[in-house]
């Protein structure tokens, strides 16, 4: 019993089944999610060879609820509350592009003051979403303080939105034709003071998190997405901006009031995890300036909501409008056949597009980099499933 052949002979004689060891046997299959603390409502199967990930297969759909089909059964206004469910933290933005597309189909124009308030709600919501995202990025890397601080500061923005829209997360505020209500009294001063406070807090975040050498070690140079790959994969939002593509829908295709606002597209060149995690912070800082300008330039009074029938319907046609949400370009493709109910609604969401980059980035990384890479893609499972 010295050579392997003799062993095979022996096992054949005994009637045992012996399988030769293959390359696959060295790999360990790990199912990350849907009950994994580092996945969200999402599952991806990874295989690890030692400490390296050699295979990744995303498997979304755990929170798929058929938003696109549901839209075909409800009229334009009734679609709003359920359309904001995929990203309740960013519900103003997810309704924004829907409203824009419906407005294009129906043919109404939003009053100027309404456009400003819509943009304010959208920017505040971007802050809320990004702070929440940042908090989870912190806890994924084991930094519990970075979980608590943004979660606490997010409360400020949520309170502002609560005063503005009346609800903490699911606002149902940006509707076709404008916004539901005017801004309350004293909102402007409150908003300005809280933005100022938030800008001070961003420096603290940089001190404790972004400039922390341990965080830098974990993210710098990890999972680099080159510019060519980013374009080819069609990723969007902070992911593509981290790969030195300065694309922002607010700048590229300014909707509503954004062509009057002066701001810069924040982007970075490196394309690694650090850039992907730092660009959202830069975005938030830019968003603070945008908010200040919006509050400054807003007309003192005026209509906020165009007159709209309860069942708005336009001529048959198609429209594709997009906005820049917290996770990148968020587009709605709506086909109308002349009835109050849309004939077909298609959401093109940033999370779904960014998910394509996950297998490309994860393969070849260490297992410990998995949460850092996964969450740096600015991926929100519920939105991707729709």
């Amino acid at each position: 019993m010295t050579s392997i052949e003799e062993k095979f002979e022996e096992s054949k004689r005994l009637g045992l089944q012996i399988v030769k060891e293959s390359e696959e046997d060295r790999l360990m299959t790990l199912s990350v999610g849907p009950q994994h603390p580092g996945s969200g409502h999402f599952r991806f199967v990874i295989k690890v060879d030692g400490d390296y990930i050699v295979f990744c297969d995303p498997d979304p759909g755990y929170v798929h609820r058929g938003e696109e089909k549901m839209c075909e059964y409800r009229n334009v206004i009734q679609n709003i509350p359920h359309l904001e469910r995929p990203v309740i933290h960013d519900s103003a933005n997810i309704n924004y592009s829907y409203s824009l597309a419906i407005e294009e189909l129906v043919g109404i124009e939003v009053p100027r003051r309404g456009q400003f308030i819509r943009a304010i709600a959208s920017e505040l919501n971007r802050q809320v979403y990004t702070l929440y995202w940042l908090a989870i990025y912190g806890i994924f890397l084991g930094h519990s303080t970075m979980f608590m601080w943004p979660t606490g500061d997010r409360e400020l923005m949520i309170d502002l939105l609560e005063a503005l829209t009346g609800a903490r997360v699911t606002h149902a505020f940006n509707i076709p034709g404008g916004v539901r209500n005017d801004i309350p009294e004293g909102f402007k001063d409150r908003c300005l003071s809280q933005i100022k406070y938030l800008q001070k807090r961003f420096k603290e975040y940089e001190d404790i998190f972004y400039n922390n050498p341990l965080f830098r070690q974990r993210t710098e140079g990890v999972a680099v997405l080159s510019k060519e790959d980013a374009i080819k994969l069609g990723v969007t939002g902070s992911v593509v901006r981290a790969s030195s593509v300065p694309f922002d829908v607010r700048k590229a295709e300014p909707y509503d009031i954004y062509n009057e606002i002066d701001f810069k597209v924040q982007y970075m060149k490196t394309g690694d995890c650090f850039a992907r995690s730092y660009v959202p912070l830069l975005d938030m800082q830019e968003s603070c300036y945008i908010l200040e300008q919006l509050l400054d330039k807003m007309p003192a009074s005026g209509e906020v909501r165009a007159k709209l029938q309860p069942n708005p319907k336009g001529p048959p046609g198609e429209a594709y409008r997009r906005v820049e949400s917290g996770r990148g370009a968020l587009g709605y493709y709506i086909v109308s056949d002349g009835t109050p109910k849309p004939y077909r609604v298609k959401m093109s969401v940033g999370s779904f597009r960014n998910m394509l980059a996950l297998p490309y980035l994860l393969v070849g990384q260490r297992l410990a980099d998995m949460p850092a890479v996964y969450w740096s893609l600015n991926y929100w499972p519920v939105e991707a499933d729709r």
Partner: protein
Amino acid sequence: MSTNNNKEELNKKGASNQPKDSTSNTDATSKQQEKQPPSQPSTQSKQVPAKTSPPSATPASAAATANTASAAKPSAAAASTAKTQPEPPPFEKGLVEQIKKEFGDLVKVVFVRPLRIKIQVEPQDIVRVANFLRDSLGFDHAESVAGTDYPKDNQIEVIYHLGSYSRQELAPHILWLTTRTNRDDARLPTLINVYKSVEYHERECYEMLGIYFEGHPRNERFLLPEDWADIPPLRKDFRIKGR
């Protein structure tokens, strides 16, 4: 697709994660337009080129377009829109003329609106057209792939919303590349070799509308449950219970 590719790459060159296509990347336009970005983290103020239409006018003018382009049903809207269209902006017209020059009658221009162009091709030409759009015009990624079911025509329309990152002046534009297939035996050639970014979109389209993309490596379940045994849910003859 992703998995197969990844494994091959791993075998080839270890821990690299560069996606590879057989038919990849030589756009001359992107090289011309590419600015050298400043050092990181840096900012850049990007200007929308003046020759495109002022975007502030978009909702109103687009809405006007939609109004004038009224027709009985969306499938028929296509044909009539191109005729009743007001004069389209010059940049879009230039793009359309380039496409027309290359393909002639193979490509049907459905409408040209500010920032939006819709062209329709036959399924057998779509890969050629897509290659041209990517290589010569610079539409380098797909934002979404939407399928719409038209039971009246017994057809399914698939729309590729193509956008551009590499050409600055194309950034606000979305080109709708559409094609139609028979509803009973829905088959289309995949565009995955032209646009990597359509991989998951086409998979979603396959399971939601039942369009088989020939050449796509994984025509499989994606978002729906694994035990889904009904007809594809976004077809019009699938009804939600109780409605």
